[in-house]
């Protein structure tokens, strides 16, 4: 073997164990532990430390970070819905409703953001669940069709009826106190959502959602109320999306028709597909790749939409498992050098 020093041999990180048990390794040393902890701890520390850098990061950099985290929230929400077989092409629906609830509470009732954001998170999710409830009987492709249409139609309703400020929107809303708080608020929201959804997916309660995706007839036959379960998963998935809407509303001190824009539907969808659906980590990884990329392409106008549509296409066809699973697998297949014990003893 070339490139291997005398007295060493190559060894894969998962040492063949992963062939039998996908994620379980025999942990024999702290070094093994470190190999596993590294990819988990480093991103976490970077995320939590980012707001502390303060003015060392430019205002633009912080804006990109905020946008990334907002898209992460929407992508996580998409992933939970998809894990229950409900493919949403209109995350902007949840986002816009959350945003409008927060905006309305602040503009009409004068509530401070400390109240409007939590209320809008819950109320926005509840309203979107109620609006979607009659349509929850649809499945597969039909659900996708209807979620694609809903935000665009709501946008027109606001435009034509002039409710909630109509085309002008609601402006002059209370801003959030400072940038560090904004960053921490949305970072923690994203992490809590990520971990909560991961936990949910492996619980008995969450397994039922996967059962709905795999075979909803079997779920009915087992005596579960399919409609109620679907409504529950929509509510849970709508929470982070409505929070993102409420947060962005206060950040820009404005909510209007752009809250239902296609960008808030396509960006999370593309993020989740690039990162790989089903793992939740993937949705976040995707957002952290896509949003900075789309910022780089901002000067090219709507060409960036073409670029991420192309990425969406390439990943759907070429790498359906997504970057996250791909990278995770490759990471455990890395080869490291270990001393050959016999050789060491003989010397």
């Amino acid at each position, binding site marked *: 073997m070339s490139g291997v020093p005398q007295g060493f041999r190559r060894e894969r990180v998962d040492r063949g164990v992963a062939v039998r048990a996908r994620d379980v390794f025999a942990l024999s040393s702290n070094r093994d532990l470190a190999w596993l902890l590294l990819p988990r701890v480093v991103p976490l520390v970077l995320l939590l430390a980012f707001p502390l850098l303060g003015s060392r990061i430019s205002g633009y950099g912080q804006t990109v970070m905020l946008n990334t985290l907002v898209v992460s929230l929407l992508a996580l929400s998409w992933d939970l819905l*998809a894990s229950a077989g409900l*493919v949403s*092409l209109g995350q902007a629906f949840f986002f816009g409703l959350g945003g409008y609830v927060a905006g309305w509470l602040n503009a009409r009732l004068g509530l401070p953001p400390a109240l409007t954001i939590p209320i809008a998170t819950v109320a926005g999710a509840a309203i979107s669940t109620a*609006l979607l409830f*009659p*349509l929850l*009987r*649809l*499945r*597969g*492709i*039909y659900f*996708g*069709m*209807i979620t*694609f*249409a*809903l935000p*665009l*139609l*709501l946008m*027109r*309703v606001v*435009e*034509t*009826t002039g409710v909630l400020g109509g085309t002008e929107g609601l402006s002059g809303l209370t801003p959030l106190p400072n940038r560090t708080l904004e960053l921490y608020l949305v970072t923690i929201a994203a992490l809590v959502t990520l971990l909560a959804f991961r936990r949910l997916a492996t619980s008995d309660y969450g397994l039922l959602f996967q059962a709905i995706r795999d075979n909803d007839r079997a779920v009915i036959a087992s005596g579960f109320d399919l409609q109620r379960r679907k409504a529950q998963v929509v509510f849970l998935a709508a929470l982070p999306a409505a929070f993102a809407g409420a947060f962005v509303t206060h950040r820009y001190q404005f909510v209007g028709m752009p809250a239902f824009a*296609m960008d808030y539907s*396509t960006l999370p*969808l593309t993020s989740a*597909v690039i990162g790989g659906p089903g793992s939740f980590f993937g949705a976040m990884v995707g957002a952290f790749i896509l949003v900075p990329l789309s910022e780089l392409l901002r000067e*090219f*106008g*709507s*060409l960036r*939409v*073409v670029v991420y*549509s*192309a990425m*969406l*296409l390439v990943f*759907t*066809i070429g790498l*359906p498992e997504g970057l996250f699973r791909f990278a995770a697998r490759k990471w455990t297949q890395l080869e490291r050098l270990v001393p050959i014990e016999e050789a060491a003893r003989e010397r």
Partner: protein
Amino acid sequence: MDGLLASTLVYGLVSSATLLLTALGFSLTFGLSGVANFAHGGLYLLSGFTAWMLMKAGLPFLAAAGLTVVLVGVLGALLYRVVIMPVRGIVLAEVISTFAVGVAIIEFFRWKGFTTYDYALPELVEGSVEILGVSVDWQRLLIVGIALALTLGLWAFTHWTKIGLALRGMSQDEYTALSVGIESDWAAMLSLALGSALAAVAAVVLLPLGIISINSGYDALLVALAVTVLGGLESTAGMIAGSLILGFAVTLTGNYVGPRWGEVVYLGAIVVVLTFRPSGLLGSSKQLEERV
């Protein structure tokens, strides 16, 4: 007859025919191969601009329109071969990949700056005529005629010709169809080509009514979804009923409540119908099983 009522009747019919024509291609592809072609809106817009460019190159309108229909039909077949075939059967991936193609086409034209008033197609027939005391231009009547002719023609095609029957057989029971020698990919490719060509027909007939605006791509997809979901699939009568309901509802509210309220009706109509009849207005029980 009351002027407003007459105008509602005439323009309701015209707008129903517009909806029907827009949705026809999408619904046909979906009914025959089960592929929801979310690139429908993109192809619609692409057809408009292709016809415009062909006319710039010196072709007369009819030739340009005909060539566009053929070209976009071929593109639809390619779309199936390149994009859909690798992910056939994975519904989520089919939807996402065609959606991506559609958005890419539409946003490409936006980026290229196809947004001025120069981009318009000429009307095939100028002038207008009075029906029930309401003045309608010939182009709008032509839309009604073409929509009707195409719907009837397609019905005859899928019920009486060998190819049409093969396509329907494939949509009803894939394994049985395979066992009598109908190739699945061939049938799906043909249905995609037909659906795309119909999107092109809709574009060259409907777009002369105004300028070719970028957002008409998204609108076309939205209309196709609304009509298809509302009417029930693979049911020609359902599609006609769906577009009549939407068309008249929009015109009625537009005339009696206020011109800007018409659009709101889409949302209401879809939600109400799907709440009470999840299979669509005239959908059959087989479709009900697929949907619910």
